[in-house]
């Protein structure tokens, strides 16, 4: 525990922030700087490890330890650190290209090993730093510098992928919603084990408006399906209900309130969280946000000698 209460300012480094004006990364940074004091961990015990990408510049701006590593490999570097130093609180900062394209393998292995890492995936559905090629989360048909006649690939759903990889905690939030993002960070850091937090992040330069449907005040209430433990999973307009062998999103006026699934954030079978993850279409008409922390029969991965030799 820190001796004196720290403030947001204490977590702000002296480095000039070098993102484009209006970049979603700014508000994520600000939310993080505000959140860190409440964690109650001394600054020197916090480490941010990133890969390469606009998002991966994040560590420079925090007055903690930080490593800006190589493209896609932050989870590997962070795993080594976490195993050697279980006393530290470690965040991994990554982008959709960094985490899911070149770094996909390290991400899924970090998940299954359940190493004590909090992985924040800034998903802007584009390669920002290399100036606008499509990414593994870009929607099918997307026209970018490298896909002038539209991409052909089905995008990954990062939450589904993490659940396929035995993740013990998955969450989604939005860059501009500081309150929600803070709650998600709180839950992720409270979780024992690895956590994947997908954050929708606007890139005004190369993919502006990608998340308008969940950010625009006129539509967001309708599209964000709130996953709050013990509460029905719904947006202002839609609710999630069972339909025989899977889940569906239906307009509220076509269903009974009692049929709406009550979110069980700790449902032990990841099938449940996976089924929810399928509800976000690539057009983002509906997007579940919140978290699921599977209470699987797993402890956090611990290689360190004392634990093993007891």
């Amino acid at each position: 525990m820190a001796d004196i209460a720290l403030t947001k300012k204490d977590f702000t480094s002296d480095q000039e922030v070098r993102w484009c004006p209006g970049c979603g990364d700014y508000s994520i940074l600000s939310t993080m700087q505000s959140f860190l004091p409440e964690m109650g961990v001394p600054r020197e015990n916090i480490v941010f490890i990133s890969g390469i990408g606009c998002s991966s510049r994040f560590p420079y701006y925090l007055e903690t330890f930080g490593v800006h590593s190589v493209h896609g490999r932050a989870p590997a570097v962070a795993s080594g650190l976490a195993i050697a130093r279980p006393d530290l609180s470690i965040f991994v900062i990554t982008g959709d290209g960094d985490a899911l394209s070149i770094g996909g393998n390290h991400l899924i292995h970090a998940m299954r090993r359940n190493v004590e890492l909090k992985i924040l995936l800034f998903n802007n559905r584009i390669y920002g730093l290399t100036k606008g090629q499509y990414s593994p989360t870009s929607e099918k048909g997307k026209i970018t510098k490298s896909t002038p006649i539209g991409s052909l690939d089905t995008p990954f759903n990062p939450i589904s992928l993490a659940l396929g990889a035995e993740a013990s905690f998955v969450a989604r939030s939005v860059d501009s919603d500081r309150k929600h993002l803070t709650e998600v960070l709180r839950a992720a850091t409270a979780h024992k084990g690895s956590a994947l937090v997908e954050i929708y992040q606007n890139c005004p330069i190369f993919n502006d408006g990608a998340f308008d449907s969940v950010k625009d005040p006129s539509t967001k209430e309708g599209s964000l399906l709130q996953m709050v433990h013990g509460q029905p999973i719904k947006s202002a307009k839609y609710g999630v209900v069972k339909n025989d062998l899977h889940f569906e999103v239906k307009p509220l006026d076509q269903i009974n309130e009692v049929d709406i699934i009550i979110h069980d954030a700790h449902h032990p079978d990841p099938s449940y969280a996976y089924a929810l993850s399928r509800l976000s279409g690539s057009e983002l008409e509906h997007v579940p946000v919140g978290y699921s922390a599977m209470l699987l029969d797993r402890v956090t991965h611990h290689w360190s000698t004392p634990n093993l030799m007891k």
Partner: protein
Amino acid sequence: MTKPVVALKSVVIRFAGDSGDGMQLTGDRFTMDTASLGNDLSTLPNFPAEIRAPQGTLPGVSSFQLHFADHHVLTAGDAPDVLVAMNPAALKANIKELPKGAMLIVDKDEFTTRNLQKVGYETNPLEDGSLDGYSIHAIPLTSLTVGALAEVEISKKDAERSKNMFALGLLTWMYHRPTESTIKFLEAKFGKKPDILKANLLAYNAGWNYGETTEDFANTYEIAPAKMPAGKYKNISGNQALAHGLIAGAQQSGLQLFLGSYPITPASDILHELSKHKKFNVITFQAEDEIAAVGAALGASYGGALGVTTTSGPGIALKSEMIGLAVMLELPLIIIDVQRGGPSTGLPTKTEQADLLQVMFGRNGECPAVVIAASQPSDCFAMSLEAIRIATTYRVPVFYLSDGYIANGSEPWKIPNVSELPDLKVEFARTQENFLPYDRDPKTLARPWAIPGTKGLEHRIGGIEKADKTGAISYEPKNHDFMVRTRQAKIDNVEVPDLHVDDPTGDANVLFLGWGSTFGPIASAVEVLRSNGEKVAQAHLKYINPFPKNLGDVLNKYPKVITPEMNLGQLALLLRAKYLKDIISYNQVRGLPFSTAELVEAAMGVING
């Protein structure tokens, strides 16, 4: 035109501003308009790794330098004759390279106390006399632009954004550049946003008119077209020329061009360019990483396509294991390394030539591959054809080196006639009995290219050592030794043109021997030296593995050989090892091309030393 016209032989202009100020675009447009006038030219873009670093700061400065002339141009110029500085940061970052007497155009509006403080100016340089000796034009660029756009329905911010067009218009006027193509360009770019289009056109015009009507500028300048060999020219960047060369070569070979790539600066533009040309039987595949990119290219080559992969240094590091497989499979593969500042992430938007030893040796085992290197933007076209010739004739991986300077720099390129292009037709193995996948052509040592779909050629190959001829797995000690030496012999045996030495008097004592993008700076230094009466020879290596056959003789002939490299002496190491010649290295690793002046000085040191 009412102002007096001064004729110049050459001019170097540098546009500098914030990353968000559109300096690259401004420079590009001015370059295109200049090329259309028939000047020879060379450009040097220089920008930070951030997409848009914070406004008004030194790390955020982006610049574009253009050298154009009525004669053959070799570099983008050591120092600008004209600096356009859009804010105090741009001024501060560039002023040290501006020789006294040069023209300085600044946007006075940006010299606010706050902006000056941001970059550590304690007093306003426009007022404190520190710029004495320059020909300063401090113009309220922003407010003039905003004023000119009063009638347009756009935000002030959008209006201000057009100020680069004001600057472009002014320079266009000053150097008598034509305006049509820029107008057309703007129409295409902003066709869907009529207000923005209008703003840009008005600003462009306003800049032009400012020059013409105010008394700020006394003269205009004219640079006569350069005399170049007859033909149709197009201004082209290295990455574009390289991509066009690949397309042309693939067409000449009759093969589908398959690019497997993962984006990385400064190579991504090749991917972008090639992905526009599906109609020429080009497939581009953006892979999940560099390993998959080269793996897919190799898979495509196995299938009978021309597999190509493009990347920069860090990507080469990742690809090396798969390239080892390509060496074993003996299939054509072209690996393009557009080098950037290293090591590690290094200086991703800057130039360097420090990957030479990596491409030579960066694989496990004795794993030889061909290495060639382009010397200037327009040369990339020809070297692409060479890469294809070698890869397909010998069925080997070919490393093809470019770098940030060549890739982003541009110059006029003579568009060749299809009839001038070499015949690169390729023969696949045909159906036959007792097919032997590792039976070699006695001349080239190439094995047959036996693609799936050909009846009777079914065979299995892989990365384990293979028996001579049959290609079956073999752990036999003698066979391994034989195959290791054969793969080496195959590379050593690749036919490459002799090294051409430029030594007009034939009795120079000193040879400048370079490779890659140092060509322009070296040639320019040699010109200066010769005009000073020094005798120096120049030769430039485009084939590094194998070296040209006459290289040993060339080295023997000259008592002193200087090799300038933007690394710590990588080519020199290869030359010393092979020829036991005491090469004199001149190295700098600054992320920037050599200046003519420093090479002249280095040479004088050797000549006199």
